[in-house]
């Protein structure tokens, strides 16, 4: 097994005449925790959307586990091991917490529609397995008691956590977290940092993270990429990034903490 999980080469995307991301290069090796930062509108979420197959790059090449991802739909990429959360939480709001998790486990089921109707042994077995696994995950995230509550009614912080949990339920190799700490207070952010560290240790998952909270990013990321206007202006460890004049310029007046 190669250690390179994901590799992008000169990936660019244009909407109309507007170049949104240009020549994005990134190599992610197994087990890394990489931060992607940059001012608003820098194209960070667009990078995520290209990596997960929501958008197709105008040019360039994305390889996941050595295979090109061009033309592969998001659901297929998810099966191959890329999972994500969204900047504005996208839970299945009217469904229960438990169902949110179970839906993410869909790809681990193999029984057919007729089997579902006649309740075949295989179906019952797989359903049982999914259920057990879901509760296991919920317990880890302290959401066990809320399993039957409607996801949309959870408090904000728990919704964020549930979304990360849902991303984990697909058994991913690479998780893309889009501003997981957005809207969280200091304490919640602290807890989130611990959680991220914990799941990394427990599941051995590689993480790519977009975040504005510099404390969080600098605190846990081993490597950071800085995007500005779609261009990668800096790449390196937190220290290097913090002292890079280009980064400071890009952030000038917006964030100095």
């Amino acid at each position, binding site marked *: 097994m190669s250690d390179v999980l994901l590799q992008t080469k000169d990936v660019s995307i244009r*909407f109309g005449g507007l170049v949104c991301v240009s020549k994005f290069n990134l190599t992610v090796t197994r087990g890394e925790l990489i931060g992607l930062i940059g001012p608003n509108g820098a194209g960070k*979420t667009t990078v995520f*959307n290209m990596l997960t197959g*929501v958008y197709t790059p105008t040019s360039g090449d994305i390889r996941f586990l050595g295979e090109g991802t061009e033309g592969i739909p998001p659901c297929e990429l998810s099966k191959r091991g890329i999972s994500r959360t*969204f*900047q504005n939480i996208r839970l299945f709001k009217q469904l229960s917490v438990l169902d949110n998790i179970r839906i993410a486990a869909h790809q681990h089921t193999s029984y057919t529609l007729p089997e579902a109707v006649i309740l075949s042994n295989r179906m019952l077995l797989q359903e049982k397995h999914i259920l057990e696994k879901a509760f296991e995950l919920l317990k880890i995230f302290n959401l066990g008691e809320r399993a039957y509550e409607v996801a949309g009614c959870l408090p904000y912080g728990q919704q964020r956590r549930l979304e990360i949990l849902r991303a984990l339920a697909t058994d991913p190799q690479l998780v893309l977290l889009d501003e997981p700490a957005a809207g969280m207070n200091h304490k919640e952010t602290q807890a989130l940092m611990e959680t991220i560290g914990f799941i990394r240790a427990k599941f051995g998952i590689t993480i790519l993270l977009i975040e504005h909270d510099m404390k969080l990013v600098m605190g846990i990321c081993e490597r950071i990429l800085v995007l500005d206007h779609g261009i990668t202006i800096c790449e390196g460890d937190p220290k290097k990034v913090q002292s890079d004049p280009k980064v400071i310029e890009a952030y000038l007046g917006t964030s100095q903490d």
Partner: protein
Amino acid sequence: MEEFLQHVINGVSLGSIYALIALGYTMVYGILQLINFAHSDVYMVGAFVGFYAARFLNIADSPSYTSFFTILLIAMAGCALLGFSIERFAYRPLRNAPRLNVLITAIGVSLFLEYTGQVVFGATPQLFPNILEDSIIFSFGGARVTKMDATILVTAVGLMIVLRHIIQNTLLGKAMRATSFNRHWASLMGISVDRIISMTFIIGSALAGAGAVLVGMKYPKIEPLMGVMIGLKAFVAAVLGGIGNIPGAVLGGLVIGIAEEFVVGYISSTYRDALAFSILIVILLFRPAGLLGRFSVEKV
């Protein structure tokens, strides 16, 4: 050649009527994202308002431009009032309900108007009053353009120009555009959204009323279900052009009107009713948001 020309003339005149009714659909959709199924019945009521007004004013048999404009204005006013009340009493209470509910309500209002029409106006077709004499004003070979055709076209185009002026250049129009762009933000900008929506219904319904009078003059048979088929086609025209898009509705109406005339004229008349939909499906497969509609990519 003569036949071809005649088909073009027929098509444009039919298309302009589809367009006029399509405008009402498109305006309401643009602002509320609601397929206002009751629109076709507002159109029907417009025809009957014209019918009774002409009787009441005793101008049923004095064709002149004066009677034409009188009836036109009365029908427009009647429809505006009806459209306003429908919005006020049936749709406004559902402003924050799921869209499908409003749609069902629209179907309910549509059925209500149709069946009430059958009781009040009677199910028998009536003759729309003769309010404008017809004569051939222009003849090219065997192809004829009549005064009626010309009046219909001029009136329809005139109304569309007025509408365009309202939407592009007036404060009301700006408010309407803002509301259709984003209702919530518009209300934050101090726009009274309810008032703007009412105005949209008033204008859209008035156009349906005008359409009814124009159709009534040309095809002087009116009955309570007259709106169903023409309403459906006009709606298809609106979708075809890109629903919510005003020039799109006009274009869609013309495309369907002309295509119908040509298919019936040169290929076969048996599939006429399927034609509008076939065109629509084919075009939507290539342009999912209609001819002039803009396909918005959902922000992730």
